[in-house]
């Protein structure tokens, strides 16, 4: 696993762009990112952000959705084109539609305001890790209880084959591949469904079956977590 600390030790300093119109938010995000050894640039609106993005390459972009001159999610496209930083969007708690739209547009994750620094940095780490993973070969996930070999499409729960249906495996594969990252309903439906119509209701049913097969306590899932109104997230249960 490659994380910011490793990258730093190898001499690469990560570069972050914060786009938010609230000075107070920018200030504490900056303080946290600097403490985590990022180089930080700031912008208060889309125009400023585009100027900065054109000038340098960023590893991480933190975008507020409600900017004075538009929706921060509109930045995702141009930024990806410019080299693809990990993107975290900041949004209001009850603004699911815009969150989902941003994620579908390519954002890696979101944080709902208000949030603490610890939560924010956890998301940042997951997003960066995922970005690195995408460049390497499919790994094997193993937390002692559940193990998934993405290359060989093999799943073991407590050493036994849980006999997943193709759909359930498809879901698990996609979730594990993006470990730590929220996947929207639409993402899961298009990636894990391959042909055949399906709706969110069907997705919920399959997730429930999947949980029953891989979770220790299916009623209190610790691996496949629900992001209400947005989608699902696979978190590592590795100690």
């Amino acid at each position, binding site marked *: 696993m490659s994380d910011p600390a490793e990258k730093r030790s190898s001499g690469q300093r990560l570069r972050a762009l914060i786009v938010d119109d609230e000075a*107070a938010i920018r*200030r*504490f995000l900056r303080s946290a990112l600097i*403490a985590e050894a990022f180089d930080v640039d700031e912008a208060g609106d889309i125009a400023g952000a585009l100027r900065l993005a054109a000038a340098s390459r960023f590893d991480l972009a933190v975008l507020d959705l*409600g900017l*004075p001159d538009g929706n921060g999610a509109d930045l995702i496209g141009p930024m990806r084109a410019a080299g693809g930083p990990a993107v975290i969007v900041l949004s*209001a708690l009850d603004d699911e539609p815009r969150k989902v739209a941003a994620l579908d547009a390519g954002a890696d994750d979101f944080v709902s305001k208000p949030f603490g620094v610890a939560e924010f940095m956890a998301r940042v780490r997951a997003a960066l890790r995922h970005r690195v993973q995408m460049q390497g070969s499919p790994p094997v996930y193993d937390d002692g209880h559940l193990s998934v070999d993405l290359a060989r499409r093999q799943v073991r729960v407590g050493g036994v084959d849980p006999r997943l249906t193709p759909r359930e495996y498809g879901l698990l594969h996609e979730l594990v591949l993006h470990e730590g990252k929220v996947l929207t309903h639409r993402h899961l439906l298009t990636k894990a469904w391959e042909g055949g119509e399906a709706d969110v209701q069907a997705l919920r049913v399959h997730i429930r079956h999947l949980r029953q097969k891989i979770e220790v306590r299916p009623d209190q899932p610790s691996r496949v977590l629900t992001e209400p109104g947005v989608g699902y997230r696979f978190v590592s249960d590795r100690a």
Partner: protein
Amino acid sequence: MPESAERRPSPDALLQQAKAESRGKLKIYLGAAPGVGKTFEMLSDARKKRLEGVEIVAGVIETHGRSETAALLEGLEVLPKRPLGEPGRAVGEMDLDALLARKPEIALVDELAHTNAEGSRHPKRWMDVDELLAAGIDVWSTLNVQHIESLNDVVARITRVRVRETIPDAVLERADEIELIDLTPDELIERLRQGKVYAPDQAQRALRHYFAPGNLSALRELAMRRAADTIDEQVRGHRKAQGEDAPWAAGERLLVCIDEREASAEVVRHAKRQADRSKAPWLAVHVETSRSARLTEIERMRLSETLRLAERLGAETATLPGDAVAETLLAYARDQNVTQIIVGKAKRSIVFEAVFGSVVRQLIDRSGSVPVEVIPESSERSAKTLFPLSAAWPALTSRGVAEALAMTVIATLVAWPLDVWLGVSNLTLVYLASVLVSALTRGLWAGLITGMASALAFNWFYTQPRYTFTVADPDNVLAILAFSGAALIVSILAGRARQQTLAARTEAKTSRELFGLSRQLTSAKSEDEAAESLARYVARAFDVECVVLARVGFSELRLAGASAERLDLTDADMAAARWTAEKGEPTGRGADTLPGARWLFLPLRTSRLVAGVVGVARTSPLTRGERRRLAAMGDQTATALERAHVAQALEQSRIETEAERLRGTMLASLSHDLRTPIAGVLGAASSLRAYGDRHDPSTRDGLLASIEDEATRMQRYVEKLLDMTRLDAGSIQAHLEPLDPPDVLAAVVSRARKLDEGRTIRLDVERDLPMVRADAALLDQALFNLVENALAHTANGEIVIGAARSRGGVAFTVVDEGRGIAPGDEARIFERFARAASADVRGTGLGLAIVKGFVSLMGAHVSARNRSDRTGAVFEIAFSAESLA
């Protein structure tokens, strides 16, 4: 700011709203004739609106050289006309593009029916207006009834003047509001005489032709009916939108033709029975021809009463213009998918029909597949129209007898000198004349008495032998007998003529009452106004006490109008009224139920329901005729009540929607303005905790300052919210005391300087200002909010806080060097949650609303405008002369 998460209405609702919002609203000032004051009224309204801060621009106003109207233009923004045509004989037309570019909230466009000069974009002005509406601009315009296309023929026939400039009826029907500008013919003629409408020589000609009183009455009625029709349609449209229309059995649809004859009511009732039997909807239609202008007032009343009857019985009614009655009816019937036509047949001789043709015949000939049912006029009805002899016998009084005898004495005195020249038998003519006068002026009894006395007097004075009652000459016996016979016939005929005159007079009075009432009802905006009108009219017409009770729910009644402040209505009376409302039948004095009560209650009935109850009380009971008149007035009022009720319901739902919208905005503001600082505080605090020692001292300091700032911001927001809530709850009271303006400003400035130390805040106070009666805390907070607002809207530049004498009072001003106020926003910015269009300013959207609330509590006035010397805004709190201590 846009991030705020507003509650989203359903897409459908949004779509509808967008449709309604994007298009401007059209208001038409409708008048019966030139000179009634449409433009005057429109400009008066415009001035009022302007004072409320609405941005109004006059696209084109035709003053026709009337000075009163021109005076109103002063202070209104009037766009210059666009010159057209060859130079030298150039004509000016409204500059549509300039008006579109100017984009005011309301545009005034006079004379909707105007035809544009060649070279304009549209041939007609109403098309220009259509474009303005499409651009989202509200338009007020004026229109005379003769310019409405469907009425053009009728008007031409009434006035013998054909108007070429017409607008399609659809334009009028699309109007969101129609204001009828009404002037009685007498008033209008008076205005003409005074030269207020045309130059004197023109006026004389106009008075002889177009403005003849008869023409004006007819035009006026057309205008009123047209305005009322449109309102009715709007109400009906609403009902439909609410899905209140009952489902009809498919297919059947009846049409009944109505004219001014009395028998029409019978035909309508027949149609109702038919419609009920086949469970079909039915239409009652009257065709208005040029003949309609010649109807007597009584006939017109009867016609509208028949139409109302049909409406009450559940018909959809319509008045169609057109000269070929049968053709118009059939075209309408086809258009409305009518399956059967019902028509009454007048009793006319075969010869009459052979000469003049018959509508019924034409209908039958041309109706094609649609069956026509002909209802013959019942013979019973024609019998009724015979003169009722009994009515001609007024009570015999001794004074009446004396007067009748006096007529004989006078006849004798007149005949005396004539005796010398005339033959005796010719003298009977003198006596006959006296009989005629007596019967005409005093009735049948008087005529008979005068006749008998005259016969005796003639016998005594003039037949041989004179001064005896004996008659010698058989010729004279014949003369006396002939005279007596003639006197009897003359008495009866003259008595009947008198009776008919009286009846006509009463009917005319009834029509006048109803006409006056309907005028008031048309303008009534609420149930109570309609009810008040009825109560006042009834009280005056019958000399009674009158109450009007409007229905609330099924069985409750509410006092909506009364003729006097205090009326003696007992619980038992109210119970009787409720019974009337529930059963739809009269109760109380003179009715079948509770005939012993003091009050008589009649139901106010529309086709769908009993809208209320009218109650009258008088020492003597109402006569049958009076009850009929009362019922007719009640019918009119019932419809008005229902209309007002629907209108009120509409208004109520509009208010609720507005409240809903405000709640939504409020929630969005709360979620954004409270959450954002919380996010800042939480983030900074968690960063400090997580990386405490890894932050350098200046970062730590910055984070702590950020916590402080954001908490202060939150505090200010909560304060404002509380202020607003207290304002709403009405729990703030202004304690007015004399304040010294420099003192007030000094406090504001010292508080404001703490807000933003980097900015220049300058004081500019006129010397020796008088003391101002105001509330120290409210004024301080209002000014502080203004300064805060100025700071938020200007990145840099000086802010000047001042006080100076202004219009007899004292004005406090806050002047900034920012970008100023977007045109048209001067009033809007004082609404709550209204923020400047540029979204880079952070504010609660409450500050200015609070200023407005506080300032009006102190009886002062707040306004905003742009600086005239450079960019920037001026906010002013003005205290009038009365507020000076």
